[in-house]
């Protein structure tokens, strides 16, 4: 399979899977979902291999050259993100398979949840299967987002992703409607700000292709305004402090596999785009260093704030949601360090690895990421960043263990907990193993990430 074929396959598989799942209906959706996951993982690996071997892969959609057409590009960062998404997505699929399999389930991970009342119960089983087409569409949107080189096309993928995420949250039932609605309103607002920025860039440079824009980019009011608008819009979508407030309710009320997907993947898409913008596009502008610094500062606040808030929560999922807020803060700091001279590779690696959701404890990739982050910060003399990362990692670990201890505290009386279906456990274990493997695969991953980073 050639690189471009792999690229197309990576794009098409989840979307086709969504079609298949929708057509298959309630009974066949699971099979479609799982099959798609398997294919998607394989395709992502093939693409990553192709990128590693052959450098950046490009596909001009419809055969039209930029700026008229849309070019899809897989550089190292995109390939890594695709790979990560596929693997995590597969884990989520396995998890969801059992999770939604149990009809009228009661979320076993929500420790503080009371008996499911008529008002608070999740959507009935008859619609739970819709998880599959929606999730596969979200996955397709993510892949499209990673690969897209066109600002407007990115807008469409963002919308597709946002609506899918909202629909997924809505799966939790009427109780989650308010949270989903808030999420929808804000993600729409973010999209609007983003598209406004795209328009300004298009007006100034007659192209929406990222690479072309970078060549043509002239500093000016509209460019700065566009940068500000797009960044703000993405900050909302990425839930960066202090714009994170929508995230905990939304993630906290969603069904567990959805929470996992949202925290691990969806919000990271916004970050990915931010990174693309500031590392590839605006970063070259004179004086552009201020913004990453500001983002880094926000990230620092997010790390601390999210960590403290997570500790205050009584519900496990709310805790995890706040921890996501904190993790996103790390990403911002990584972005800052990456934007500085020299540390790009390390910072980007740190950021990318951090994308896996864990509080940065070994042996996971998150840990390696955290280490790389600290090292980069020490090297750069960014001691405040070191302090924040350390404090944040402490908070994260504290809340993680706090959650763990709750699980243990309930334990002695409750022998039924052994009867939690095996698949979620398997999936959780598999994801943990992936996190470990990510740590182990640090070096190849780094090589992958550097593909195209120099251009």
């Amino acid at each position: 399979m050639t690189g471009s074929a792999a690229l197309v396959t990576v794009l098409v598989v989840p979307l086709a899977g969504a079609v298949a799942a929708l057509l298959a209906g309630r009974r066949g959706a699971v099979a479609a979902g799982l099959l798609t996951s398997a294919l998607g993982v394989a395709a992502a690996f093939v693409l990553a291999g192709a990128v590693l071997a052959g450098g950046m892969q490009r596909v001009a959609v419809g055969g039209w050259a930029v700026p008229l057409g849309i070019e899809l590009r897989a550089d190292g960062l995109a390939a890594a993100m695709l790979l990560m998404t596929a693997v995590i997505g597969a884990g989520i699929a396995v998890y969801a398979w059992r999770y939604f399999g149990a009809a009228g389930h009661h979320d076993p991970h929500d420790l503080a949840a009371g008996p499911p009342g008529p008002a608070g119960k999740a959507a009935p089983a008859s619609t739970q299967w819709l998880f599959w087409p929606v999730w596969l569409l979200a996955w397709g949107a993510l892949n499209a987002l990673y690969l897209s080189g066109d600002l407007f096309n990115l807008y469409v993928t963002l919308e597709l992703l946002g609506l899918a995420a909202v629909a997924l949250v809505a799966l939790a039932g009427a109780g989650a409607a308010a949270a989903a609605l808030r999420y929808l309103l804000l993600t729409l607002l973010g999209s609007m700000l983003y598209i406004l920025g795209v328009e300004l860039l298009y007006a100034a440079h007659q192209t929406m292709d990222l690479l072309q824009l970078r060549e043509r980019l002239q500093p000016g009011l509209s460019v700065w305004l566009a940068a500000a608008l797009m960044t703000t819009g993405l900050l909302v979508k990425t839930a960066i402090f202090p714009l994170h407030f929508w995230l905990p309710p939304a993630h906290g009320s969603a069904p567990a596999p959805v929470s996992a997907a949202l925290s691990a993947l969806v919000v990271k898409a916004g970050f990915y785009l931010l990174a693309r913008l500031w590392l590839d596009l605006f970063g070259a502008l004179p004086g552009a260093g201020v913004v990453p610094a500001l983002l880094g500062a926000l990230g620092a606040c997010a790390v601390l704030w999210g960590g403290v808030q997570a500790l205050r929560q009584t519900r496990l999922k709310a805790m995890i949601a706040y921890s996501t807020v904190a993790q996103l803060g790390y990403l911002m700091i990584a972005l800052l360090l990456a934007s500085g001279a020299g540390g790009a590779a390390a910072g980007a690696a740190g950021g990318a690895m951090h994308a896996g959701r864990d509080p940065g404890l070994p042996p996971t990739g998150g840990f390696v990421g955290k280490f790389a982050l600290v090292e980069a910060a020490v090297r750069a003399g960014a001691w405040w960043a070191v302090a924040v990362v350390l404090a944040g990692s402490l908070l994260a670990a504290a809340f993680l263990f706090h959650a763990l201890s709750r699980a243990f505290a309930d334990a002695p009386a409750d022998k039924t907990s052994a009867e939690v279906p095996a698949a979620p456990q398997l999936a959780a274990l598999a994801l943990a193993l992936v996190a470990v493997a990510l740590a182990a695969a640090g070096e190849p991953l780094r090589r992958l990430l550097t593909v195209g980073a120099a251009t």
Partner: protein
Amino acid sequence: MADAAASGAFVAAASGALTWLAPALVPLAALLLLLPVFGPARRMQRLRLLLPLAALPALGVALFAAPGAVDLPWMFLGARFGLDGTGRIFLLFTAALWLAGGVHALGYLHDDPRRNSFWLFWCAAMAGNFGLVLAQDAASFYVFFALMSFASYGLVVHSRTPEALHAGRVYLALVVLGELALFAAIALAWQAAGSLNFTDIGPALAASPWRDAVIGLTLVGFGIKVGALPLHVWLPLAHPVAPTPASAVLSGAMIKAGLLGWLRLLPLGAAGAPGWGEALVALGLVAAFAAALAGATQRQAKAALAYSSISQMGFVTVAVGIALAVPAAAPAAVAAAALYAFHHAFAKAALFLGVSLAGAPTARARALWMIGVALPALALAGAPLTSGYAAKAALKAALPAGFEGVAAALALAAAGTSLVMLRAVWLLRHDAGAGAHASHAPNGAMWAGWALLVGCCLLGWPAVGRLADLWPATAGAWLGAVWPLLLGAALAALAVAWRRRWAGGREFTVPPGDLLGPLLALARGRPAPAAPAHAAHRPDEEAQAVVPSWPALGRAEAALSARGGLTLAAIAVALAGLLIALAN
């Protein structure tokens, strides 16, 4: 330390090792037999009869083995076992003592409910005692010394009475202290000599900067066992409360282990340490006198005997002091000390065993007993024709020029010995009914064990010394040998008269453990109990005194525990701040 050569040597040395280790290993094997895994206690009754025989290999080695040594590089820190001249003397009396004591104990304990426990500790202590005699390196010596010391705790507290437990606690505290001192001494000696073999340590120590430290620590460490002043306090407490056979081996054999330790580890003959030596001589003399006097005031026969042991070990201490002070005199002094130990071991053990036979039923038996008690007592007093005379003579002969005063003092001390012996024999007679320690009348085994010891006391000397030494060669010498005895008798008469005439029948008693009472009181911060110590001790109270609560420390810990994170954070922040400051 560990190489191919060592493993080769292992094979070659196996037979030698068996010879030199058997004395210690056989009791250990016997100990294993006692463990309940081999059968219910009841079925062990007959087997137990064989336990005293565990001392036989040691006796055999002492009597028949040719001198020699074997290196066992794999054992402990590289061990060496063997027998030299001094060792043979020590092994001889030690083995005989344990054998006789064991036989006696068979009878003494035949209906004791805790006899199993007794035999366990007995075997362990015996193994330790034999092992340390045969050990030719400091580490092995220390190992067996510790085994013996700790095992004897079980013998001391055997009765579980409050007095026994109190005595046991004091004993244990001092044992631990002694172990520590020895530990340090051996560690230093090793550093000084680069070897743990006694043959290497002595010469190396002479030139070592750590000489004084090693000497001091050794004196303290073994001094506790020897009962040297002022580390003797456990002896008068422990001996009366232990079962009689245990008292016998404690006072007869184990106390000598300390002496052997001195002889082995101190750099005797290699380099003079006049300061240490003279101090030791002085201490020994003071012990000889003071302990004799204190012993004479005792109300229990075993306490009196215990003080007598302290006094007698004072004599030995003098010999060691001389050896330490004057290198040239060392060989003679060491030989004298060994002979003295030999003599004292049998005599004192015979007296101790005599205590439990005081309640003899028949007149003939009582007469026999009286003779059998009187003979060792005379020997201790140094009467001619006894081993005591020969030992004392050897001691005097070993005194080099410049120590004439010491000779006189020793003679005077011998008078004290006579005094305390008279008191002891008197107590034995008057204790006869009330103070019997065994719960039953003397039986055959008890008599047999005792007889064995009395026999050794009378006839044992030729095994180590010349027969001719047993009596004075000249009339002047006769006089010199007898006057202390007479003086002691006169003093005794004076004391009895004084008590009848002027003291209104009240007795003045040095409480057993003399210095200990005031010391403990000092430590507790309140005055010593007025009543005799053994009646006033309340073990539990004391236990609490040893384990204090120290609330302030508890609060500090609670604070540390509660604010541990803060502490760490503070440290971390301070460090981080400094790192940052430095990086800039």
